[in-house]
Every structure is written in C-alpha cells, then in structure tokens.
C-alpha cells in the first residue's frame, strides 16, 4: 500500500518546504540574494577618503576610533539610497550615533547636489570614487549599512535600504549594549 502513497507524501513534504521558503521570502524574512558578511565580529577595514563636502579634508577611520559609528555606503545613482534617505535622516536625528557616509563610485558634484536637495544625514562623507574602500568592506550593492563599535569591530550589517524596523532589530540592541552615546 505504501508504494502508492509514498510519492504523494514526498510531493507534499517538498511542497510544504517550498511554501515555507516562499512565504518567508514574501514576508521579507528571507532574502536569497543576501550574502552573510564575513566581516561581522572582525576589525573594520581602515579607510581614508577625501571628503565630499570639503575635498581638502580626509574622512579617516583612525580619527573615528574610540566611539561607535554607523557607516552607510551609497551613491547618487542608487535608487535604494533615495528610498532609505528619510530613514537615515531620522537615524541621524534620534539614533544617538554619528553617521559616516561612503559615496561609492560617484561624482562629487552630483553627491553635493544630492545632499543639498535631500538633506545631509552624515557627520562626514568620504568619496570612494575608484571603489577600493567598498571592496575592503565587502560591499556588493548599495545601499549597505554597517555598525562599528568603539573598539573598531564590525557589529552589524544591513543590506538594502534601511528601515526603521531593520534599524530597531539589527542596530539598536548593539547601541544599548555598547552605549551608543
């Protein structure tokens, strides 16, 4: 008897598995394109980039050491960055942690114009015109957002436009534990 039901049972099990995965993708809990960053828990890569707002200045990771900061990789060419911009402005206002921007493979004029138009959430923005800093951070698509501890360890990463919910879930627990202020 079992040989008649076994294929149907196998089909149902597979179907349930697929339905489970699809539902989680639909709810945004599972992103099949998301790559776990090997950087989490490791030292944040160093960088020194010319500032977008004042090219005579450097945005230097050594100068940022000693306090927690959020690193946001963006570009004026990036649609998801526009999408997350209001969330970034809100984080800058109330998050209690400085935002450092990395303008990835972009032109300075466009970046200055973009920030003037939409508002500037960043304490400092560096220009990574040749994309080398982004490679060191394992960035594969803007926007990406990292949290770096006071001792220079990468604590968290969010891929894609950041939202209030993602901020609360992935970043705020670290801020509370590590004293974001």
């Amino acid at each position, binding site marked *: 008897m079992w040989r008649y039901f076994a294929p149907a049972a196998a089909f149902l099990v597979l179907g349930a598995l697929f339905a489970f995965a699809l539902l989680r993708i639909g709810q945004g809990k599972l992103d099949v*394109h998301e*790559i*776990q*960053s*090997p*950087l989490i828990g490791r030292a944040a890569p160093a960088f020194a980039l010319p500032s977008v707002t004042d090219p005579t200045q450097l945005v230097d990771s050594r100068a940022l050491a000693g306090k927690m900061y959020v690193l946001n990789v963006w570009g004026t060419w990036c649609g998801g960055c526009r999408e997350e911009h209001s969330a970034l402005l809100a984080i800058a206002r109330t998050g209690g942690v400085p935002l450092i921007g990395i303008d990835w*493979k972009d032109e300075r004029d466009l970046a200055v114009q973009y920030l003037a138009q939409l508002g500037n959430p960043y304490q400092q923005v560096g220009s990574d015109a*040749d*994309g*080398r800093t*982004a*490679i*060191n*951070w*394992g*960035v*594969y*698509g803007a926007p990406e957002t990292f949290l770096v501890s006071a001792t220079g360890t990468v604590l968290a990463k969010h891929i894609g436009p950041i939202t209030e919910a993602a901020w609360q879930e992935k970043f705020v627990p670290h801020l509370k534990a590590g004293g974001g202020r």
Partner: protein
Amino acid sequence: MSRWLVLVALALSSAGALAIDTEAAFPDPALQARYEHMIRELRCVQCQNQSIADSPVGLAADLRRQVKEMIAAGQTDADIKRYMTDRYGDFVLYDPPLRARTYVLWAAPALLVLITVGIAARVILCRSKAPIGPDPEEPA
C-alpha cells in the same frame, strides 16, 4: 560540412578569448592565462549568476582590476582567493571549499547516486524474481 566545422571551431575558440576586457591584462601569455582563469573562478556578487569575467557591472570591473593588480604584484592564486573570501565569504568562489558547513553540498551527488542505484537494484531484483508472464498487479 566544412562550413559547419569552421563555425564549431570559431565557437570553441571564442570561448577562450577575452571575456569583457577590451585588451589583454598582461602581455605575458602565462600571466594572462592565470588572470583569465582566476576571473572565471570568482562570482560577481552583485549579479550572482555570472563570473566577474562575464559581468559588465562596475563592481566586477573593480574586482578584475584587483585580480590583475595582485597577479602583477606576484601574489598566488591562493592569496587572491583568500583576499576575496575575507571580504565576500565563500559565496564569491564558484568552487566552494570542503568544510563542515559544505559537507552536505559535496556529499549530495554521491548520496543521490547511491539512493538511485539502491532503488534500481531493488526494482531489478524484484522483477527478476517475479514469475514470467503478465504482471498480476497491472490491469490487463
């Protein structure tokens, strides 16, 4: 017939030609071959179903530049792979390393063959023991 042979020969030879770069990265054919091999081993993490040799996106170009510079600096293929996995994880390699997390992945083909052979053996044994004549289970 010979026209077809020419076409096939052209198709085969083009596979080894420059992928997306407009000129060779190295004048030395040995280094160029290493470069071509490496960029086919690395996945474009942005587009995910192309190697960085095939992808037109900016990040793939940046990673090809990185591979080129590391080869020029005399680094080994292992150095380059480590550089990439340190930043992008094992996913960047088309050939995932054998480690605890990937045992299932590597064992899956052998397991599937074993299961298939097992089922086939059972079916063949059952059938060979069955009396010759019309299958009693099948409707006439």
